């Protein structure tokens, strides 16, 4: 174990943890805004109660996304100073823009939304939640553009050992980013859909029929997002074939360049020629294998091991596909079961509760595929992970921060879980009776 290994573990732990909350923020925020819009349009009281119920769950989760996000921004400089110096000119720009354009919008308007119920006109108040969730989604775009650049760097040149941006537009419209952004955002809507489905399933089992509406809404949301994820996943696979052959080969366990390559569902079960078709749209296309790519990379960059951890990459890919597709399948089944005002069967509601972890595991596996598959590079073809770490930071220092963050994150995960479960059990609260006299209690959040 050296500082590099621990720094990698810390980045992995804090990033995966951060990304348990972020997709829920992105998707659930839109869902809450949709509920409030429904209330605004129809004036029906149960929409308001549901807005507040899901709004509360959204805020409990939002807090975690925000505070774990700050760690991410600092961590590049703290643990990966060589990386930061090399990429800052290019990679820093989308990060700065994310804060300026998206985070200010998200945080400020969310504050207005939380505390503005009785201070803002109804329409303006509705607009604040939309502004906040649009901010969240814009932030996804910028950070994913930055991330895509690591895997497929564009719009730059290397001067004096540092990347210099030559074209911001190229960075922001990187083909890798344009495929990745809708893929990750739609996957976030599946995570949020799975969450709403589990909560609604639980409330329906308790006999709370208010949740039929949210259940149907989440089914539609998950199914549509599933179609987007599949389509953009296909785009990403074709780009990976061109841009990141090593990752594709590792994800498929393909060792040598193969014409008409089969797709392995699991080791031992293969579908002939499917991989070539999925990668290039041609059943006879040659797909590169890990050993051959390794040989070519050694010719280009000198001796070294340019292969990522193939077991992790191979299985992440299958977890992502399997759990992601089963969540979408479950939602399609639900749409069929509840068609034309049919009751939600209780076995199905139970299945929804049990399925809660599936989309989360799928989206995390997607990140493991994407980022472990990028190894050993931080910036593909330009900078190795081993050369990215902070030279002045000691093993003891990284061990300290890793321990602190892991303990703290563990505690907070338990606390968040308890808080969410308590609130879900309690269910939506009745609205206060209309009062004519001046109200004595100010509206308090804290």
């Amino acid at each position: 174990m050296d500082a590099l290994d621990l720094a990698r573990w810390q980045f992995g732990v804090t990033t995966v943890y951060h990304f348990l909350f972020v997709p829920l923020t992105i998707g659930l925020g839109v869902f809450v805004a949709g509920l409030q819009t429904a209330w605004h349009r129809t004036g029906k009281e149960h929409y308001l109660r549901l807005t507040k119920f899901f709004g509360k769950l959204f805020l409990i989760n939002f807090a975690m996304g925000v505070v774990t996000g700050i760690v991410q921004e600092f961590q590049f400089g703290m643990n990966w100073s060589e990386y930061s110096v090399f990429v800052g000119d290019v990679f820093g720009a989308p990060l700065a823009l994310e804060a300026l354009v998206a985070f200010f919008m998200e945080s400020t308007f969310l504050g207005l939304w939380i505390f503005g119920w009785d201070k803002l006109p109804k329409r303006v108040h509705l607009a604040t939640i939309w502004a906040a969730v649009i901010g969240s989604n814009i932030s996804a775009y910028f950070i994913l553009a930055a991330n895509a650049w690591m895997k497929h760097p564009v719009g730059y040149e290397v001067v004096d050992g540092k990347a210099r941006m030559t074209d911001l537009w190229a960075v922001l419209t990187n083909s890798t980013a344009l495929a990745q952004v809708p893929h990750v955002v739609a996957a976030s809507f599946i995570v949020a859909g799975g969450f709403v489905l589990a909560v609604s399933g639980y409330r329906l089992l308790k006999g709370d029929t208010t949740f039929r509406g949210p259940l149907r809404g989440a089914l539609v949301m998950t199914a549509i997002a599933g179609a987007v994820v599949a389509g953009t996943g296909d785009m990403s696979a074709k780009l990976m074939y061109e841009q990141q052959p090593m990752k594709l080969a590792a994800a498929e366990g393909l060792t040598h360049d193969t014409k008409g390559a089969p797709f392995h569902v699991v080791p031992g079960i293969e579908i002939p020629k499917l991989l070539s078709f999925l990668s290039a749209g041609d059943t006879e296309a040659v797909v590169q294998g890990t050993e051959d790519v390794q040989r070519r990379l050694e010719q280009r960059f000198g001796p070294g091991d340019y292969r990522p951890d193939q077991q992790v990459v191979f299985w992440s890919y299958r977890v992502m596909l399997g759990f992601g597709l089963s969540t979408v399948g479950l939602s399609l089944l639900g749409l069929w079961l509840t068609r034309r005002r049919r009751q939600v069967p209780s076995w199905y509601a139970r299945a929804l509760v049990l399925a809660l972890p599936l989309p989360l595991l799928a989206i995390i596996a997607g990140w493991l595929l994407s980022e472990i598959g990028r190894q050993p590079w931080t910036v593909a073809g330009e900078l190795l992970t081993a050369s990215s770490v902070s030279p002045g930071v000691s093993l003891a220092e990284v061990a300290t921060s890793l321990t602190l963050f892991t303990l703290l994150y563990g505690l907070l995960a338990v606390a968040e879980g308890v808080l969410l479960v308590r609130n879900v059990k309690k269910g939506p609260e009745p609205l206060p009776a209309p009062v004519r006299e001046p109200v004595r209690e100010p509206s308090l959040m804290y």
Partner: protein
Amino acid sequence: MIDLWFVIIAFLWTGYFVLEGFDFGVGMLSPFLGRNEGQRKQILQTIGPVWDGNEVWLITAVGAMFAAFPAWYAGLLSTFYLPLTLVLVGLIVRGVALEWRGKLEHAADRAWADAGILAGSALPAFLWGAVFADVLLDSGVAALIGGAFSLAVTLLHGAVFLALKTEGRVRQRARAVATGATVAVIPLAIVALSSIPGEGDLAVWVAAVSAMALLAAGGSLIWRRREGWAFAATAGAIVLTSAAVFGMLAQRPLPGLTLAEAASGPYTLGVLTWIGLAVLPFVLGYQGWTYWVFRKRIAAPGRAARVEGAPAGIGH
């Protein structure tokens, strides 16, 4: 262009210190000035709608450093590794505690949240002062004094903000604390002032001395119940202190580093300038609007009927 970006970053940090300064102060004071649950809610509600937006000033300042001066960003963050780890721990604990507190039903859970808000406000308030003092003077003693100074100033600033934003008992106590904090701040300010290198720029000296004068003015204004002016004075003092700090950093942002060496290329700085100048007015506009929406003083629950409309906060 390099100078412009240094000024932009100094501006962002300054905004962060002024705005989160009172958030930290309020967070530290809430368990002491709020003698019962109603008063604590009253106190935390003064920063409730704004603290998260205020924190984005830090995110933007650090993001702008990353983009405009990568070597400064990387050097500062990796050099002050453990202090910044603790800053992050503080910000995490404080943020979660602030957001979750109103959703906790048991008094024991809320006591944990209060402890988190206190510790999570005090840690960064102390450490930011310590880190910047250490960058400037490269000594542990300077770091301690810098940390104590920034802790005391945020307490004063937060107490003045509370006096400005609340009614009743809390307002009275906040005024008393602000007066007391001034007494603690002034000697620390004198020590901090005396540690500025003698060969320093004249403008730095003027800023630092005026900052001290404004701190004293803030204390005397709060004594005379001019809360709005007192807040302007403490905010001005933080602006001037920050200006003095960045005035010194301009020559040497880190030991052995100049701004020109740390800077990104002209293309990146140029394109970011245009986008930044186009977006910043909107950000300032809607953040300012938030303060306007929540401009009224906040009463303890059950004390005054200032809030019209239904009690519709999600917390209820």
